[in-house]
């Protein structure tokens, strides 16, 4: 089978996991057994897909499968399976299967389990993704997915406050670390020139020599340390113990917390072997190792003890990677395996005890050996492994650790320091393991248990039995059992030939053995003197990083609320003032910090009388309108004088199209303003207070002065424009001599399409805003004079009727010629609108409305469809959207007319513009038909 090559198999592993994660949820109505079996089947399928690939990975090969995804960003769906990935896959899937079995018995019978198993599968898929990623960006995506899915798992019993807090804390810490990791990975990719691991792992020398090595390393380590609960980010893990015990056994011993150390192992060839690595990784690991071991001793909650023990062991693994010798890396990988095995079984045993007794408090749970001898024996063996007792797997990796500290080259003058430190750490591990064994299984009678404990069901114990069996097998015969896997994984982590080491139980009488003996004896001794120790610990000030975090979190939320309340007070005036002030600041900063590249006076147009006169009128109009804005009618007239001056300016400076448009819009605007004025309250608003007035004047002067300066500077700068292209291409490319129109309908037709869509939205909004709106129509003006009752003077009415056909003819002419002479859809549309609005003014809304189409929405749609349709029409000819075609046609009377497909586009623009202007103005006008009459004051 040719297609079933190894790349396909490799890609199928995470693909299966991701595709199948909703299955338990879908099957849960068939009962919890079905859901469990389905989950186990998914994991087993992944394992089955993995098996054919395993031999190559055992032999030291690296299988890579690549599928381009976003190559422009360096993000590909590329996967990688080597020894390290294989080891983690086996841990994830193997322990996953056991957890599925265990959870089916552990979780309450009322729980249908579909949701639990689905999230568990999602988490497993994300974990598989992390350990199988070849692309670091892809790894990060999966990394974040593990954070999210673990949030859901920890908060599984969401009705409990503890669960919600624990989940949030875990997400905040690991999510924050994920952000740092993202930055670190981006830097790493920048340094190495690729996000592919095979490139990065081979570029170690270059990466370490790079100036950005230190920030890269620190950021990546932040990601790894938060995930693996290293000091001082460890505090989320004990809080996450609010999760159901199967989750703790899976996430918090075997898989997710191992993702951090996995990353250390994965990137060791690229980032390791430097002093910075040694001090950061080794130092963090060492502090975590001892601090967490000491804390574990004082925990009263069984899971709390195990959580701190996990932190401590993760610290040990981190320390081993930090020691930065090939053999220490081997020991680190070995301890990953051993810890996963014994800690998962211990968590499961803790879950059994919790399940049977109804509490996990070691001050109450005592003497369990008599109640459940089999579980007790299993847990005691696993705890022995945790303590490093010979014949168990934990002993082997701890011996390797001790041996490493003895032979470590770096600390020549202080050769005894590191072994001493390691021995103390060993003692503490023995001490808390002793406490776990003695306090739970012996130490008298149980005190006031909520339930009467028994041995757990057969199948609930089975996973523990299997794991403890593995502890023993690995501990007695490491070479036969775990040897090949360890060789493959450590080789992949090192990306170099393995150092010479010998996995065996007995290495003869040597220093590491002496250290082990000392640790065992010392640990038991510490536990024997626990009473004074506990008393001493009780009087220490309590440390609650979780409450501190909660307080910080609440303070942050309260602070945000306060800030929002302060800024968002519902005052539009204040928003506008703040916005304008910010723009002024930003503009001023840019203006004064920018390079002074203009130089000299604006060399341009000499002043001529017409233009100067126009602009002076404009200035007077603007200032007058502002000064007299309370005299509303006068202000409207002054503003329209400004508008006309702008129109004249456009004409003077070679912009006939703009002038036509502005003129037509001016007419519409003034009608609009008058319509609005009719309804708005006429009484004069109270004057603004003096400080407000000063603030506004200041803002106005600053923004006006600023923009004037910018304009002057812009006009003085040399002209650098792309208009040459448009001028050259207008006739040959667009088939029109009016370059402005050709730009609108052809070169930048897509923009125009967007703009007429916005206009169409205004018309739609007018429907929404004016629908069933009734206002009070005043009968008298503010001075008490009645409004004229003769609405429509006969003269105007007659003239408007004569004018209409004329105006329509002109607008058609302007539309048609627009491609070559000033005009076009916008201008023609505005002329038609003005002609129609004049009809309203002259004849009244009641006379005109019935003669116009009732459904402006349809017209809008027609216009937009024409414009977009002519754009799409170029597709069948194999051209991109909105490609224009043109040719010459001879028409009677008009002569030689150049027809371009862009004219259809222009027709669409025309229809939209007419519809919008007319429907908005007539909509406002219609308000008068249903306006209420005011209550006459006596």
């Amino acid at each position, binding site marked *: 089978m040719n297609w079933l090559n190894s790349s396909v198999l490799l890609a199928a592993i995470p693909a299966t996991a991701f595709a199948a994660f909703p299955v338990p949820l879908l099957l849960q109505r068939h009962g919890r057994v079905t859901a469990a079996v389905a989950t186990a089947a998914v994991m087993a399928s992944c394992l089955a897909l993995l098996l054919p690939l395993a031999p190559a990975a055992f032999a030291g090969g690296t299988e890579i499968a690549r599928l381009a995804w976003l190559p422009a960003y360096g993000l590909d769906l590329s996967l990688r399976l080597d020894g390290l990935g294989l080891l983690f896959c086996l841990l994830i899937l193997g322990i996953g299967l056991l957890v599925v079995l265990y959870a089916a018995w552990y979780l309450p019978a009322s729980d249908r389990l579909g949701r639990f198993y689905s999230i568990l599968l999602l988490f497993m898929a994300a974990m598989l993704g992390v350990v199988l990623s070849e692309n670091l960006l892809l790894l990060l995506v999966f990394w974040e997915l593990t954070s999210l899915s673990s949030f859901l798992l920890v908060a599984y019993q969401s009705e409990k406050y503890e669960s919600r807090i624990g989940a949030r804390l875990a997400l905040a810490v690991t999510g924050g670390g994920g952000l740092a990791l993202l930055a670190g990975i981006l830097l790493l990719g920048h340094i190495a020139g690729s996000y592919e691991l095979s490139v990065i792992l081979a570029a170690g020398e270059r990466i370490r020599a790079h100036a950005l090595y230190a920030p890269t390393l620190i950021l990546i380590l932040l990601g790894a340390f938060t995930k693996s609960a290293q000091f001082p980010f460890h505090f989320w893990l004990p809080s996450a113990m609010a999760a159901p015990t199967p989750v703790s056994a899976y996430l918090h011993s075997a898989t997710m917390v191992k993702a951090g150390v996995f990353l250390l192992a994965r990137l060791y060839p690229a980032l390791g072997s430097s002093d910075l690595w040694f001090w950061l990784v080794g130092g963090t690991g060492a502090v975590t190792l001892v601090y967490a071991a000491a804390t574990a001793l004082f925990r009263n909650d069984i899971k709390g003890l195990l959580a701190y023990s996990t932190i401590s062991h993760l610290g040990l693994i981190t320390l081993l990677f930090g020691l930065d010798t090939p053999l220490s890396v081997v020991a680190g990988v070995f301890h990953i395996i051993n810890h996963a095995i014994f800690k998962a079984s211990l968590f499961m045993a803790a879950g059994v005890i919790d399940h049977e007794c109804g509490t996990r408090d070691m001050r109450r749970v005592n003497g369990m050996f008599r109640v459940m001898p089999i579980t007790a024996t299993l847990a005691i063996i696993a705890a022995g492994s945790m303590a490093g007792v010979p014949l168990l797997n934990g002993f082997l990796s701890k011996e390797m650790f001790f041996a490493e500290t003895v032979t470590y080259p770096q600390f020549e003058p202080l050769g005894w320091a590191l072994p001493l430190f390691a021995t103390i750490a060993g003692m503490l591990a023995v001490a808390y393991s002793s406490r776990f064994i003695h306090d739970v299984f012996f130490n008298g009678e149980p005190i006031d248990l909520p339930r009467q404990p028994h041995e757990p069901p057969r199948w609930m114990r089975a996973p523990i039995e299997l794991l403890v069996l593995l502890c023993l097998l690995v501990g007695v015969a490491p070479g036969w059992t775990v040897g090949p896997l360890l060789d493959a994984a450590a080789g992949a982590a090192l990306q170099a030939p393995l150092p010479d080491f010998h996995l065996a139980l007995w290495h003869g009488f040597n220093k590491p053995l002496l250290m082990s003996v000392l640790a065992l004896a010392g640990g038991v001794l510490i536990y024997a003197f626990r009473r004074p120790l506990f008393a001493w610990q009780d009087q220490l000030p309590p440390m609650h990083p979780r409450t501190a975090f909660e307080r910080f979190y609440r303070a942050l939320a309260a602070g945000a609320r306060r800030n929002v309340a302060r800024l968002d007070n519902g005052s539009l*005036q204040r928003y506008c003032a703040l916005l304008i002030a910010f723009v002024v600041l930003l503009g001023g900063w840019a203006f004064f910090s920018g390079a002074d590249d203009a130089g000299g006076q604006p060399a341009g147009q000499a002043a001529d009388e017409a233009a100067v006169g126009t602009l002076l009128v404009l200035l007077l109009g603007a200032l007058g309108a502002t000064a007299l804005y309370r005299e509303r009618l006068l202000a409207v007239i002054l503003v329209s004088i400004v508008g006309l001056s702008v129109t004249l300016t456009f004409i003077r400076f070679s912009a006939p199209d703009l002038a036509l448009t502005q003129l037509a819009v001016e007419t519409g605007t003034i009608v609009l303003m008058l319509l609005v004025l009719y309804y708005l309250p006429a009484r004069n608003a109270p004057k603004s207070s003096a400080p407000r007035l000063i603030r506004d004047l200041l803002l106005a002067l600053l923004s006006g002065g600023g923009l004037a300066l910018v304009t002057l500077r812009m006009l003085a700068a040399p002209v650098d424009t792309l208009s040459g292209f448009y001028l050259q291409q207008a006739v040959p490319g667009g088939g029109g001599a009016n370059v402005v129109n050709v730009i609108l309908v052809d070169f930048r037709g897509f923009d125009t399409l967007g703009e007429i869509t916005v206009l169409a939205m205004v018309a739609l909004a007018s429907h929404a805003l004016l629908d069933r709106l009734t206002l009070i129509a005043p009968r008298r003006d503010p001075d008490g004079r009645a409004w004229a009752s003769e609405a429509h003077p006969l003269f105007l009415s007659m003239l408007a009727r004569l004018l209409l056909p004329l105006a329509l003819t002109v607008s058609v002419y302007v539309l048609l010629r627009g491609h070559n002479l000033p005009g076009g859809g916008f201008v023609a549309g505005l002329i038609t609108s003005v002609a129609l609005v004049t009809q309203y003014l002259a004849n009244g809304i009641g006379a005109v409305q019935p003669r116009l189409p009732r459904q402006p929405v349809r017209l809008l749609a027609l216009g937009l469809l024409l414009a977009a349709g002519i754009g799409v029409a170029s597709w069948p000819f194999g051209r991109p959207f909105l490609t224009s075609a043109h040719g010459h046609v001879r028409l009677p009377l008009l002569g030689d007319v150049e027809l371009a497909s862009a004219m259809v586009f222009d027709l669409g623009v025309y229809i939209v513009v007419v519809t919008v202007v007319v429907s908005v103005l007539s909509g406002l006008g219609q308000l008068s038909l249903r306006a209420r009459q005011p209550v006459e004051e006596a």
Partner: protein
Amino acid sequence: MEALLATAVGVLTACGVFLILRARTFPVLLGLTLLSYAVNLFLFASGRLRLGAPPLIRAGGSYTDPLPQALVLTAIVIGFGMTAYLAMLALRALSESGGDHVDVAKEP
């Protein structure tokens, strides 16, 4: 000439900003209109001021920059749309709140 135009842009902006900061809807409407004039003139001026050089292709003609003109043309029409929208909003607010203050009524 350029200095005068720059002054015009500045004065229009200043007047527009001042009116936008008023508390009643109608001056805001006027201010927005003035500000639109300012922005349109500013954009137009970025193509430089030239007499007698409209961008209509003809034999031996010299042309001003057509691109700012195209931008300003649509800006004028959109500006009208915006003014119209604001006007309708003002009327709606008048009917909902019974007044023409731009702010949400605080306490009754």
